[in-house]
């Protein structure tokens, strides 16, 4: 990660294509700043809230002339945030939901009623025992527990 951040010449091409910068929705966000700063200059790398403003559109990957591809570093910082307590609460909840139910979103009575009206099969129970085994083995289950608010 450090090596790629050092390759970055700060040419600004990624800022031209990053949607965040395009509509100037938040002057704080700058993919170049977010990953270079967090990789090289910050003691708390994954604590920069700007990482959550990256939409993972991959346009920086398509245009970066030096194959630095900030998107992957920003995603790595998002992953790191789970272990350091800076994870976005929605992400933590969604991931926990996937591990425990197999769905990223809660299945409500309204969902089932709507499916019935459309003559669709009721949603089947997911293989949550298999997901639990995977999450145990990779350590994700433990990390989720630690990251609980």
């Amino acid at each position, binding site marked *: 990660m450090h090596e790629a951040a050092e390759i970055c010449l700060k040419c600004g091409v990624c800022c031209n294509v990053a*949607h965040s910068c395009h*509509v100037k*929705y938040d002057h704080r966000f700058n993919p170049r700043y977010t990953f270079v700063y967090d990789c090289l200059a910050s003691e708390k790398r994954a604590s920069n809230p700007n990482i959550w403003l990256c939409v*993972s559109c991959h346009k920086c990957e398509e245009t970066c002339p030096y194959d630095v591809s900030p998107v992957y570093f920003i*995603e790595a910082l998002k*992953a790191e945030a789970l272990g350091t307590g800076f994870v976005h609460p929605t992400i933590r909840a969604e991931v926990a939901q*996937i591990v425990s139910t197999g769905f990223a979103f809660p299945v409500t009575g309204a*969902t089932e009623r709507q499916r019935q009206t459309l003559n669709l099969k009721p949603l089947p129970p997911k293989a949550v025992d298999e997901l639990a085994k*995977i999450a145990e083995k*990779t350590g994700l289950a433990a990390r989720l527990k630690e990251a609980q608010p």
Partner: protein
Amino acid sequence: MRYALFLGCFIPVRLPHLEAVAWSVLPQLGVELADIEGFTCCPEPVGFLTDRVTGLAMAARNICLAEEAGLDIITLCNGCTYTLRQANETLKADPALRARINEILAETGHEFRGTVNVRHFAQVLSQQVGFEGIRSVVRKPLTGLRVACHTGCHILSPPGVMGFDDPLDPIVLDGMVSALGAEPVDWERKTMCCGWTLTNYGDRESANRLLGAKLDAMHAAGADCSTVICPQCFYQFDTGQMLAARELKMEYRVPTIYYLQLLALAMGRSLDEAGIRQHRVKDPALDGKLGRLTA
């Protein structure tokens, strides 16, 4: 051609009318769909936002189910396609990583072998069924319907893995819309993200401004509606637009229609059968135009 239909989470849980239209129209284009028990979330946020190895293992487990059935996977969502194709291609190309993932999967009774492919329905329609094949099922050409095509991000990048279209100048969806007799419009900000991720994990106010910029561009180009091939993009342009319109004080609306719904209309289905009535963002002028075209 027969495929294992991977529904993901978003469509069956939040937008089941899009699932209904997929089951209804795809077989008529020769795309036979198999219902495989045991698929879970692809699992998008687990993989690229939290834990790459767990994400790969959960994606591989889904692919294993299709391998066991001897079928390629067809998806209805850009996010599912990205997650599953990335995992499939990565594990096919990296024996060491495949061994590690298979060790994690061992207790679940599955083994990733790398014997199937993953395709988005837009890939199946444009590359296998073909534009001519799409044209052949059109009974009610959508002549004069002006459509802003939004392909979305995750089916485009990286193109070497996704194999669909040019990420900086996508035109395949425009071709698919033309095959229905409709008119794809040229609009600015076409390749910008819909902002769904930003709405959920970032900053809703900024996401609204991003969405507003896209809708302004569609409106300026004279689009009657937009079309999408991803449920997240759909949700953003439908429910997201409804919510953003209040904050942005928007004076117009650009309804969105999932591509398979447009296809259903062109195949002669009614607005009800295509699920259009379930949408949050409505425009009487569009309803009138669609009513005349499908009468």
